[in-house]
């Protein structure tokens, strides 16, 4: 793989991660959001695989495959099932409305460029240049986590955060030791499983997943 192809491919894949993140913020239909998430997982895996190919790093390739399976296939699949369990699968009224969210996302992206500059200056390279994208994904995900009312949307936000961190990991350090990456991916998976468990339990008893009503525990 020559340098130009490598750079282009990497930029494309990383760009796709960010675009899908912003898309999830933009769209309200849960199905669309989950699709975007799946797309993001695949792009993330692509980043890992491209880097692995560039650096001839077998472990990283393995990680990439793991990410592809977990974040590209399994997690979105599970989320889709959860969404199907929940009849009203539209994020009707987010706490911050969509246009405002998008504006805020832009601010977050700028912030992440500023923040990342200090880190990437340690080892400037093609890969580290993309780090702001990862940071931005984290922030956008966190933002989504805060402002979306529905359980599924919140989990999607969490996964965005996780994906963003994973992207940073790939770009900065070509992946952490495999066991850590395993743990990280497993974490996301388990969160979704737990969510499923909870939604099922709650669904059985209450038929509600509007989190706003979950305010029994307070001071």
């Amino acid at each position: 793989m020559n340098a130009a192809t490598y750079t282009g491919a990497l930029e494309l894949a990383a760009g796709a991660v960010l675009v899908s993140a912003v898309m999830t913020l933009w769209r309200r239909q849960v199905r669309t959001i989950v699709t975007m998430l799946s797309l993001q997982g695949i792009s993330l895996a692509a980043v890992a695989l491209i880097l692995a190919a560039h650096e001839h790093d077998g472990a990283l390739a393995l990680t990439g495959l793991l990410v592809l399976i977990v974040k590209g296939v399994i997690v979105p699949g599970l989320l889709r099932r959860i969404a199907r369990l929940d009849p009203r699968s539209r994020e009707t009224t987010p706490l911050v409305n969509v246009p405002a969210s998008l504006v805020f996302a832009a601010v977050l992206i700028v912030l992440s460029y500023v923040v990342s500059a200090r880190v990437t200056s340690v080892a400037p390279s093609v890969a580290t240049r993309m780090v702001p994208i990862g940071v931005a994904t984290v922030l956008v995900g966190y933002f989504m986590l805060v402002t979306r009312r529905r359980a599924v949307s919140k989990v999607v936000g969490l996964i965005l955060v996780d994906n963003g961190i994973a992207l940073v990991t790939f770009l900065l350090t070509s992946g952490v030791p495999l066991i850590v990456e395993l743990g990280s991916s497993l974490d996301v998976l388990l969160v979704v499983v737990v969510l499923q468990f909870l939604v099922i339990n709650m669904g059985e008893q209450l038929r509600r997943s509007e989190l706003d009503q979950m305010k029994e525990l307070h001071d």
Partner: protein
Amino acid sequence: MTLLLVGLGFCLLGVLTSALPRTYRVPVTASCAALGCALAFCAAMRVLVTGDTVSFHTTLILPLNGFAMTLDPLGALFIVATALVGFASCVYCIGYVRGELQSRSAMGLFVAFILSLLAVPAASSIATLMLFWELMAVSSMLLIVVEHRHRREARDAALWYGVMTQLGAASILLGLLLLTLRGGGQTFTEIKSHADALSPIVRSSAFMLVLLGFASKAGAVPLHVWLPKAHPEAPSPVSAMMSSSMVAMGVYGIIRVGDDLLHGGTVWWWIAVVALGTLSALYGALHATTSTDIKRLLAYSTIDILGLVLIGVGAAGALRDTGHPAVAQLALMAALLLVVAHAGFKGALFLGAGAVERATGTRDLDQLGGLIHRMPVTTTIFALSACSIMAVPTLSGFSSEWLLLQGLLHGFTDASTPTLIALLVGIVALALTGGLTAVAFVKALGIGFLGQARTLGAVNATEVAPTMQIAMALLGAVSIVLGLVPGLVVPLINRAAQSGLSRSTMSPLARGTGLVLAQLRGAIQPAFLFVGAAAVLVAVWLINRRLVHRSARRVDAWGCGRDVQTARMQYTATSFGEPLQRVFADVLRPQSDVELTHVAESRYYEQSLKYQNQVSDAVEQFGYRPVIDAVLRGGKAARRIQNGSIHRYLAFGFVALLVVLVVLA
């Protein structure tokens, strides 16, 4: 030192024996503690007599800090006072205990309380001091709630006490720790050598913090609010310990830190002490005159006497670096003598009040009366101690107040203007409290013990158990000894004062049984006065006998022509204090309330008349209540922070993250 440690060990054993079965628990535990007190007394007396300082240090106790104890004459004096009252309280306990104090934890806590009181004056590192200080706080706090089941007041009192004492402890801790700033160690020796190098601001703020804490323990107004609540609610042996020893620990702390560790500091510190003392003396004396609960009255009188002690301590500090070190020493000796004297008479008074409560089931003066006929021993000792606190000459209260007056009076020669004002204010306070104290205790004695019994409880009262009488008599004897021959204890007090001021000047008092100023003009010889008075007394009595042969005939008292006079027609404690309450209405802020119900048919006849009069603590009402209410309101409002919304909780984190990123970017 070994003796003291063994004494403390016996107290510790007492804590353990409180787990014994009910039959043996009280006698065994109380005996252990009494033995511990006796040993501590001997250890402290030895230090006072020889003037040696002994110490003990180990790293095996108190992890990370080590345990350090030093017994010097200053601490020894406080231990002597504590051990005396502790011993008496333990003896008293054997007869007194019934009901709640008998329980395992209460007995254990009681002994732990005594243990901590005995150990505080010997602690010689911040860690050790705070250990025993907090042990003292927690054990006394729990002892206040011993009767929590039936008395709501006890629960409230314990809360007040707990919060005040914790604030005080925090203040003391911070103050002491400030003295270790920049690499100073935590033992008192290290602080002593290190403190002089600290900047004046640090030293002053440290002293002010420590002063706040210790003054609140000593019940200084306006930090006193806990005291009139807590002391009455504790079981009487505990009240006696609290009122005679625990409050003295506050005084001890001020002397230890201000005079000993910090070598005096500036005059302003001590003027603050005098100011606190003056406020307390006046406020305490005033409230004592209007209290109708006998233990509450005693508690306020404790505030009053401790105020006088603080005046003495403050005068000593203010004068120590002027040209009159002897006068400073005199003032400090007066304060210390008053502490010991107070331990004696206030201990006896509280034990006496406990006896009355035990015998009649009430502490309300308005429900007592005529106890002199039914409890002659208790009445005699109570009267003796009351006379002592009223400073009747030839009793201990008088000796110490006289010494205090001398300390203040002779300080006037070429003192600086601020000191002068402080001394003047001190004298005025001393003069004013004298009269007010007399009113309070004439009321306590006259309403409570003389006249006719007002309720069935008072009618059916019987004299209390012999151990209780012995304990009261023991403390009563302290008043007589310190009053008649104060000169005998002067050398000991002088040692303590010297070690407090950390210098070894000559005693300002000459040797002898009385109190005779060595270089200045002034003396009292209570023993001689007593002989004189006794001679006149006997003469008058004899003449009286000679002139009148017949014994007295009993007749009904004059009742404006009414035939029957009932006990309810007697003057009550409330009415006795009413004139003064009226005079000082601006300070006391009494709330009275008249409720008149008319007969339905006619407005000119009334069915019932209800009069309520209540004097609550103005400082509490106008100083503390608003703060407490604000805090509680704030707490309620703050509940909204955790409103249960996960969005909000996540937002906390998100905002925190953004802040971090923005700050670091």
